[in-house]
């Protein structure tokens, strides 16, 4: 929770420009650009499997980013992110199928609609002091899922809804290799947007509310407005991510988007570091790769003594949930600033190697 305020001793900024800088050094900026350029070649280099994993990481990272604005920067919790994710998915598919709005426009539109619906749930709670939002979003999660299972005109009810593939100006993108670029573009745009948001007046207002809402209010920051804004943003990014997911999978069912998925989104930002934008990406990668690696591990352990003792293969789903829960608790207890903090420490260590203090 204190990621941004822990500036190491001796690191002081003398100008406003230096304080709002995104990259501390030219090298770090060049490395970031290099990373993005390398990612552009990923579809040629990655295998099918790794490509689909990285698309998933990208999509979930957008939803987790929205949640991080709410949790990490504003100090509120939402456990309805999966509900809004699904709402974005269904909305995008619905407006694309029914009103013939191209997918290119349907995705941002779905984000906006999700944000508006989110506000219906968030507004009553955002007015209140304390943590009422977490309870309101819990209700939202259940109400939304109930709505999806009822509304056959919208989400197909018990039958999964279908979505069209992504198309731009009559050219339809087919397959993971082309869709990767869409996700990459959305990830880049949303991460740059949020990084810049945090450098503005509004972003600082959110952080002030998180750190001490009373002082913030006294200094003229409108509590209701900014809490509502940040909740709307969280729902917006969830909707965008959901819409991307819909046009990636082409079939949307509400299977697997219950409250556990919302907790998974929370896990992503806790592991990555609440209040850290790059951390969100790391946390998402961690949470997506964890089940994959557990799968791999249990596959390799098949037939061994440990496998027989724990009946690994039959219970892998439960073990995965236990692992996620334990990791959430562990990170909160021992590394509350998440992987982002650990990454900073590693960097500092190597910067001064071999003469670290």
């Amino acid at each position, binding site marked *: 929770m204190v990621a941004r305020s822990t500036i190491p001793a001796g690191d002081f900024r003398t100008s406003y420009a230096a304080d709002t800088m995104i990259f501390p050094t030219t090298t770090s900026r060049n490395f970031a650009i290099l990373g993005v350029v390398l990612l552009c070649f990923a579809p040629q280099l990655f295998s099918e499997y790794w490509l689909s994993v990285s698309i998933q990481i990208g999509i979930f990272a957008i939803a987790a980013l929205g949640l991080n604005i709410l949790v990490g920067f504003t100090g*509120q919790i939402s456990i309805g992110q999966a509900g809004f994710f699904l709402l974005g998915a269904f909305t995008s598919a619905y407006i694309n199928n029914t009103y013939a709005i191209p997918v290119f426009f349907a995705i941002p539109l779905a984000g906006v609609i999700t944000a508006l619906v989110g506000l219906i749930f968030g507004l*009553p709670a955002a007015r209140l002091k304390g943590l009422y939002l977490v309870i309101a979003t819990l209700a939202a999660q259940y109400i939304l899922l109930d709505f999806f299972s009822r509304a056959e005109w919208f989400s197909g009810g018990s039958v999964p809804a279908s979505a069209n593939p992504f198309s731009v100006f009559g050219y339809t993108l087919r397959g993971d290799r082309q869709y990767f670029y869409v996700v990459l573009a959305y990830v880049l745009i949303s991460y740059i947007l949020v990084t810049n948001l945090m450098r503005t007046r509004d972003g600082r207002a959110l952080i002030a509310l998180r750190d001490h809402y009373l002082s913030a209010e006294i200094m003229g920051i409108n509590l209701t407005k900014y809490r509502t804004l940040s909740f709307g943003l969280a729902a917006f990014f969830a909707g965008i991510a959901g819409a991307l997911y819909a046009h990636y999978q082409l079939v949307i069912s509400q299977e697997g988007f219950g409250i556990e998925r919302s907790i998974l989104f929370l896990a992503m930002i806790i592991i990555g570091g609440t209040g850290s934008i790059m951390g969100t990406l790391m946390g998402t990668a961690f949470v997506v790769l964890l089940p994959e690696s557990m799968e791999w591990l249990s596959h390799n352990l098949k037939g061994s003594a440990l496998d027989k003792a724990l009946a690994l293969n039959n219970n892998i789903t439960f073990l995965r949930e236990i692992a996620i829960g334990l990791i959430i608790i562990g990170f909160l207890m021992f590394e509350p600033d998440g992987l982002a903090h650990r990454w900073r420490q590693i960097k500092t260590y190597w910067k001064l190697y071999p003469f670290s203090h």
Partner: protein
Amino acid sequence: MNTAFLIQLLVNGLVVGTLYGVVAMSFVLIYKATQVVNFAQGELLLIGAWVCWALLTKYQVPFWVGMPLTLVFMFAFGIAVQVVILRPMIGEPIISVIMVTIGLSTVFQAALKWMFGVNPQPFPPVFASTAVDIFGLQIQTVYVMSLVVSVLMMLGMAWFFKASKYGLAMRATAFNQQVAQSLGISVKNVFAMAWAISATVSAVAGVVVAVVNGVSSGLSAYGIKVFPAAILGGLDSVGGAVLGGIIIGLLENVAQYVDSQYLHWGNLYEIAPFYVLIIILMIKPYGLFGTKDIERI
């Protein structure tokens, strides 16, 4: 109008509602004493139910031995959870603590499925007769037992807070931690005690539900229903929680009646409490008996 069906549902609602009230009471207890919104309340209930079930079926212990053993276990378990997991979190931001309880609920839920399987298990019968005759209504014995146990627990809780020394210490801590500490109350013990009592009371509710419906991981839904109940009654009012629970229980069943007789939407009773929750947050956010949050600067 189908009067017999309505009355049946109302009785049902009263029984389920008092159980909600009991669970909500233990939820509010933790919230009041330690300021933690406990998302693992339903799992505490579930653990109690499974432990009692395991004692009764796997180890063939009679009910009157198994039940106290379960309660002792849950008392220790509550203290253990508080000491091991939540005590190190004291002083951390409140949202971290809430996320810890969310993590706990995931772990408990999955661990119980792992140990006991996903299939619902019937509870061994506790009573010889299945139904008693009250004012011409045939009511199942387990319902009567459930009602009696719930009311007894509420009375016990009321006595505990009003008359006992520990209860007084707990109320003092809830009122103001620093003052309580300076008057010689061990806040650490009070926190541990709050979790222990909460876990024990939830476990009793869990066993009662299990006797009525059998044990399955679906029981932890009671932990979710606690939120509408507690919000309705006021998040920090023990009496309000009980009343909120009863209202939510009745409302669920009325919703089911309206649904089955007129609307035919299906599944309305499960979702109605959440609509109520949103409406309460809009019109009366601090509930019926909750203290309004007024700050002096």
